[in-house]
């Protein structure tokens, strides 16, 4: 069945991220001046305001910062309720949004803030593979 949920539209600025995703790599922007990783991708470092930015391959690992269980949603996501959205603290620093995998949305009390997660990619179309995070402990 074709992927029927919203698919991001890669821009020239974010292309390295989506190119990496197609190869199963979590590419992250890093400032070569202050060496800090930021998310989402900027045109200028949000920490030191240098414009010398590079892309590095991240570990694809992180921890749950916080989460919620969506019982209402729009479009094709409505067919998948309840599902668990979360914000992930990346091992490299800064934070990503996701839908969590490997959790039971009907038992939110079993989902732990701080739990380890790993990234995986789902092909939405030829060009866009979307990162999702799976609880691994």
């Amino acid at each position: 069945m074709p992927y029927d949920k919203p698919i991001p539209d890669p821009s020239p600025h974010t292309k390295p991220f989506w190119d990496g995703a197609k190869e199963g790599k979590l590419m992250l922007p890093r400032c070569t001046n202050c060496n800090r990783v930021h998310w989402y991708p900027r045109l200028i470092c949000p920490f030191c305001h240098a414009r010398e930015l590079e892309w590095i391959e991240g570990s694809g690992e992180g921890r749950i910062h916080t989460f919620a269980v969506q019982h209402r949603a729009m479009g094709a996501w409505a067919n998948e309720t309840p599902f668990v959205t979360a914000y992930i603290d990346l091992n490299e620093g800064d934070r990503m949004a996701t839908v969590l995998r490997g959790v039971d949305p009907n038992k939110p009390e079993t989902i732990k803030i701080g739990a380890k997660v790993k990234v995986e990619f789902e092909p939405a179309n030829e060009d866009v593979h979307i990162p999702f995070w799976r609880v691994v402990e």
Partner: protein
Amino acid sequence: MPAAISKAAAIVGAAEANEIGYSKTPKTSLQLHIEAIKNVSEQTGIPISRIDGVFSAGWSSELAEHLGLHPKYIDTTSVGGCSFEMHVHHALCAIHAGVIDVALVSHGESGWSARANRGRGTGGMRGAGDPWSPGNQMTMAYGFSGAPSNYSHAMTRHNYRYGTTPEDFANIAVVTRQWAGLNPRAVMHSKETHPEGGPISVETVQNSRMISWPLTLLHVCLVTDHGGAVLITSPEIARSLKTKPVWIAGAGENMSHSNMIEMGDFTATSAAASAAAAYKMAGMGPEDMEMAMIYDSFTVTAGITAEMLGLAPRGEGFRLWKDGHAAPGGRLPINTNGGGLSFNHSGMYGMQLLVEAYRQLSGTAEDGGFSGLPGKQTKARSCVVNGTGGSLSTTGTLVLVSD
């Protein structure tokens, strides 16, 4: 000591549209604006033609044109529900600087009509998200659908960090409904105003339909129609009017992020910073506040904001409601109109906060208002007003005082 700008202007009137809540016939946002503007002009005796500054969330050029005004100051700050508190801040600055004499802050938003009559109403905010915005790209794939789906993450984190529970926050909805019971204009005032209206308990809140765990339906604000307008003038003009001035003693604004992906601390907002600026300008502190109007888009918004405003220690904001302090008869009345949870919430609720704060501090809360129905008057002479916009993103804080 207060700053020189403190009380350099006063809110001299605050009125609403002829009909708010669930409008019987569909309204446009423009109609709600114009009704409120006409009403506040009549209330204060200030002719519309005397307005020389127009402030609104995206509407100012259209409003000025519609009214035939050529304003000297045009402000369309539109950063969510706190925009109106920011407009008051900006108007205070413009009047203090001598640029204008009479500022109009206006709101019209057919949240209900737009939903009930697809395409007939219009939203209050302008502009759409750019699909190429990197922030949008990195969040749009994950099924977030509107504010409830985001604010729930803040409740989860607050529960984790401070050992609070959804039941603790449910008390905010319960107490706010008590205030709505004293305000016949509130959508959820009683069974006469709404089939689900009237008093509720923590159990009612927790047993209502799950929206975005841990937020059930009754942790979430209403979606209604609203129009409201306030007029702000210099002290000289304010003293010459038939209405009572409510002084802008302090004002501040700030933001921590726009996209929730950038929210550093999910248990805090920039209200700590906007309130610090407002208190400093006023030469007052949280201990001087006799009531509070706090944007309650969700119970968690009000609970966290009470902490940010210094009204309660971190992690304990909900106690103001749970222990009855914020309730009718309590030491610190909060959201005396029944709040966004039970009075009216059109999408951006900052104007409703201003109208109620003016009514309370001018001693007119028991006057009829737009519909001839009175609210509940408190004895407060000072009020901290805080709007929150976006995804716990932007804040505007005012310290208002009566003579």
